[in-house]
């Protein structure tokens, strides 16, 4: 069986100052859940550069449509209908095809369909809050959903999360694994949020803010938001160091 040739080179080192620090005292839960000793750094081995592949054929017909995928026949989720779309690319701006993009979110009132969420806002019987797609050969993906509501959470006495969609990304290697969150342009809660502010660089935060995209809006139906995602790039394997005689 011939194998597709994919770049199996080691990933570019992660910029740990660009990512949030593990210990971010204003996000209180991080205090006891952050390693205190230095991380052990080493170049990628094949255990880190490889990863599973997720085929389009494992996806159900409505996996990308959160408006309908939990709704009763003929009904749909409540809230502002939106399309969230964009490209998954690497740090060299090359598309990442076949990336698995999984999303989850609260409903229009800010309530999650989760047994541990006790927020008093009601559940929407037609909204499950989860979806997934794989990117096409150009790294493109698109979901249809409703804009999630902001919700309060126990951290400070009056902390509210901005409207957000959780994103899980699986590219071509296990070391490329990433979970992040998408925010909405213009939301006044973004600069106040202790979780957003675990990220120090405003330019890094900006990468997580989706832009209203009127060109891709479906008239009389749903507005569009554009959200591009960047995963780690890979080095070429042409000049790997090998032990003499190997």
């Amino acid at each position, binding site marked *: 069986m011939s*194998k597709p040739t*994919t770049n199996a080179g*080691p*990933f570019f*080192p992660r*910029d*740990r100052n660009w*990512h*949030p620090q*593990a210990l971010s005292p204003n*996000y209180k*839960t*991080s205090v*006891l*859940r*952050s*390693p*205190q*000793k230095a991380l*052990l750094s*080493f170049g990628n081995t*094949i*255990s*880190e550069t*490889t*990863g*599973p*592949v997720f085929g389009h054929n494992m996806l159900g017909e409505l*996996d990308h449509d959160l408006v309908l*995928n*939990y709704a009763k026949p003929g009904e749909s989720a409540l809230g502002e209908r939106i399309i969230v779309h964009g490209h998954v*690319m*690497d*740090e*060299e701006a090359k598309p990442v095809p076949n990336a698995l993009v*999984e999303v989850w979110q609260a409903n229009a009132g800010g309530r*999650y*369909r*989760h047994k*541990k969420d006790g927020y008093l806002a009601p559940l929407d019987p037609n909204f*499950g*809050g*989860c*979806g997934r797609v794989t990117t096409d050969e150009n790294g493109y993906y698109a979901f249809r959903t409703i804009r999630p509501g902001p919700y309060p959470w126990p951290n400070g006495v009056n902390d509210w999360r901005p409207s957000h969609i959780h994103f*899980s990304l699986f590219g*071509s290697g296990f070391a490329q*694994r990433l*979970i*992040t*969150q998408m925010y909405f342009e213009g939301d006044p809660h973004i600069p106040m949020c202790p*979780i957003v502010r*675990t*990220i120090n660089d405003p*330019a*890094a935060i900006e*990468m*997580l803010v989706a832009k209203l995209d009127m060109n891709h809006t479906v008239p009389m139906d749903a507005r569009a938001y554009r959200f591009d*995602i960047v995963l780690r790039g890979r080095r070429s394997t042409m000049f790997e160091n*090998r*032990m003499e005689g190997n």
Partner: protein
Amino acid sequence: MTKLEYLKESPSQTAGPYVHIGCTPNFIGNAGIFKEDLGARMVNEQSKGQRITIKGRVFDGTGTPLKDALLEIWQADSEGLFNSPSETRGDADPNFTGWGRQPVNLETGEFCFETVKPGSVPFPDGRAQAPHINFWIVARGINIGLNTRMYFPEEEEANAADPVLSRIEHRVRVPTLIAKQSGDTYTFDIYIQGENETVFFDI
């Protein structure tokens, strides 16, 4: 003039307490959206190699197990081959996925993977790595997923020669990466902080 133009990686954010909704919806009873939670099954009846169970918990700085963590593992098959398109050394066992995803139990904090014992895979310079399983841990309060590895206690010789374990300067910390064995069941407890803090990786 040549200009270096690279994009920055999208910054990580915590998976939060409701990661199950997106990653393991059936586990929390949100059935009917996806047929099956991804990564729930790594093996089938035909998988080659020694079947093993890996159990453990993830502890915070007070020694309390996390009840909202999600773990993923990635490993070679019993012959040391990865079921991945970028595996160029041969064809891995088609009956073994190599990738697993499990949430911890919402009450006890325990995770459990049914898998096979991996074979050895090479380090980039050609030396053998001891059999190991890559772990990735996310949860509320974890701002960027934690990477580590589990090694096998019966592989003493291979572990002693392992290029990654050899890089751990403080040798007293090496045992944090070695599971405890009882028959075909291995226990791998992960300590995010404290005296026994697990060695986490920047890979």
